[in-house]
């Protein structure tokens, strides 16, 4: 081998080596948690949800099952510390390390009145500047999801239509029904929570299953555990965090388990009282209930919710009719995460004994479903921070024209793809900048190789 050939071989080796090294290290260095910008990336980007549905002409049941490594039975608690009651848990950026954020499942329902929903699911409810989005300043009032039709500028949270316009939309069915189940704030008393997404995400008219156990006038809880029922007036924070408090313990406050707070009691540091007091629901908000309290077993929550098919509240609820078709989208909150750190699904079609992705089975009137039908397996994914405004803007999304043409999201994107896109969207500027540099650097390398080979290659006659 001549010296020139050795140079050539070395050059090809250097080039190939850099390519291999580039391959091995690509995609690193940018995507990482950044709490200052409200960015926390879940360890798992996708998960699974199993769902079944059944109806008897009067009632409709939905059964949900999803994996949760450790169940979270508490949402937020009050902990006694040196004479003060301090709030711990509840809302957190990403997973709550103390497991003081409850598990949840929610289901959005539409009957075709919101046609975009059946194609794009929850994406249509994500406007710009929602609470916890990067760059959104903290506001007293939560900036929740909303339907674009409820704004004069769909991308501007502040441009809500007038009350009369909103009422007109509501009467036309321009809202999404929202069922929720919460492991801490509804499950212990066997209830769900009935809400909606329209100009905001809110609860239906009536009383929800929980209230706050806090008296701001006295700066102390309103209720404590009834020692005759619970065995003590409070739990211990260490036991709560360690997961030593379970279904067989009295771990929630309700009319059956609580008494009025006694400030004269000899409270000790670490004494812990739930920050929520559970109560029976009332009105339209109480439409969604559980046939029995859900339990976490063998790594899965198994939850069933039931509601009257016709609640008599058509401006709060989507009314189910025998033979009807509906659109659903689910969200699962696991690993003690809340707010936007949830796993969502693409829209799923539901048919009541009609062809659909998920078919609700008819059972004899007055009987409970036996649940012998197979589960509908649905992939859930972390959605990141992708707004409807971005998706429908051709300057920001190459698929905006497909959305305008009403091509359903599932036709173009898989859940895994959407999860990855969601994460990358949280680092859009940084990734784009690094990508451009990668383009320049790799082009330079190829040009370098071109110069190198052209200088080193030889013709046999050159040697003579």
């Amino acid at each position, binding site marked *: 081998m001549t010296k020139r050939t050795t*140079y050539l071989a070395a050059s090809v080796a250097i080039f190939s080596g850099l390519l291999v090294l580039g391959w091995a290290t690509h995609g690193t260095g940018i995507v990482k948690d950044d709490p200052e910008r409200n960015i926390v990336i879940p360890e798992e980007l996708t998960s699974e949800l199993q769902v079944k549905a059944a109806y008897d002409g009067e009632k409709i049941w939905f059964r949900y099952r999803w994996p949760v490594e450790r169940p979270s039975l508490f949402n937020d608690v009050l902990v006694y510390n040196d004479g003060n009651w301090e709030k711990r848990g509840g809302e957190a950026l990403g997973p709550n390390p103390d497991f003081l954020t409850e598990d949840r499942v929610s289901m959005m329902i539409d009957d075709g009145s919101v046609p975009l929903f059946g194609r794009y699911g929850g994406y249509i409810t994500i406007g710009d500047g929602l609470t916890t989005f990067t760059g959104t300043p903290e506001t007293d009032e939560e900036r929740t999801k909303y339907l674009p039709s409820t704004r004069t500028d769909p991308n501007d949270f502040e441009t809500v239509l007038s009350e009369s316009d909103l009422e007109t939309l509501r009467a036309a069915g321009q809202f999404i029904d929202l069922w929720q189940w919460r492991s801490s704030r509804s499950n212990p008393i066997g209830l769900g929570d009935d809400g909606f997404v329209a100009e905001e995400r809110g609860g239906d008219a009536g009383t929800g299953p929980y209230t706050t156990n806090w008296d701001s006038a006295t700066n102390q809880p309103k209720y404590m555990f009834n020692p005759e029922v619970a065995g003590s007036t409070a739990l211990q924070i260490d036991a709560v965090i360690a997961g030593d408090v379970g279904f067989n313990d009295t771990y929630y406050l309700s009319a059956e388990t609580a008494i009025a707070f006694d400030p004269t009691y000899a409270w000790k540091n670490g004494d812990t009282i739930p920050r929520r007091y559970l109560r029976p629901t009332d009105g339209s908000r109480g439409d969604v209930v559980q046939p029995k309290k859900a339990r976490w077993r063998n790594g899965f929550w198994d939850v069933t919710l039931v509601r009257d098919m016709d609640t008599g509240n058509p401006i709060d609820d989507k009314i189910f009719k025998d033979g009807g078709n509906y659109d659903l989208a689910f969200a699962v909150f696991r690993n003690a995460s809340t707010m936007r750190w949830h796993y969502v699904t693409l829209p799923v079609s539901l048919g009541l004994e009609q062809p659909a992705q998920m078919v609700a089975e008819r059972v004899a009137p007055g009987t409970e479903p036996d649940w012998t039908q197979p589960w509908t397996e649905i992939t859930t994914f972390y959605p990141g921070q992708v707004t409807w405004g971005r998706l429908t803007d051709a300057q920001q999304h*190459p698929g905006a024209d497909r959305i305008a043409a009403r091509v359903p999201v599932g*036709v173009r994107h898989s859940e895994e793809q959407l999860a990855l*896109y969601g994460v990358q969207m949280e680092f859009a500027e940084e990734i784009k900048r690094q*990508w451009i540099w*990668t383009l320049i650097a790799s082009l330079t390398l190829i*040009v*370098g190789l071109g110069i190198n080979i052209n200088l080193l*290659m030889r013709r046999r006659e050159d040697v003579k």
Partner: protein
Amino acid sequence: MTARAMTQNIKMNAEKDDQMKRSRLIQQGRKIGLAAAALTLVATGAALAHSEGGGVTVAVDGAPSWSLSPVYHILVAHFPVGLWVTAYLFILIRTFSDSEFAVRLQKAIWPVAALGTLAGFVTYGLGLTIYPWSAITESPLGRNHILLATWTLSYWTVMSVLGYRFRRHLFEGGQRWVTFALATIGALVITVTGTLGGSLGGTPSLVTKSLSWIGWNVYMTFYLPTWMLVAFFAGAALLVAIGIAGWRRRA
């Protein structure tokens, strides 16, 4: 006839031969060019006919006032891919064979590669007209396709120049293995670029999944960490330095 006159005669004849060969080549090139242009026109017509939509035209926020349908890019993309892959096939055959057939194929390598590169530039340009730059560079798959297309085009430009300058010498001695290695890298980048285009069009292939098995989920933007960028720039400088050192040794 003196020996000098004979030599002059032979020289003149050789020049004439060269001229004839050149004009034959030019004529052949014209024919190929005309045929390629006619084919492109026919195919473009077919694409136009197929792209006629119907249905309801919808306004899209932020839509550019002018853009080309992806069908043209997709249509034209087959030319460079086909030509480059053919060039690779010829290189492959020539690398492992010194037969007359292989040597004949070798003569076609640079024109085929160069035609592919020309078609590649057209394809690249057409690709950039489909979406606004701001939009396509927001899409991880779009970014990856642009990156790989840039690699493919620049790489095969280098290969075409090499093919033109060194022709049969590419396969002399140890250089044939260098040629083979370079061409194989070229074939790989074509494959990846093509499969990314397919994924962008909504039809991911097995190659897309295979890339995921070997460490790259194509739905994640391919970017290098900063230290690797530095390594790439340094590598480019090193390659040029090695090239100059080797060239000086020859001089």
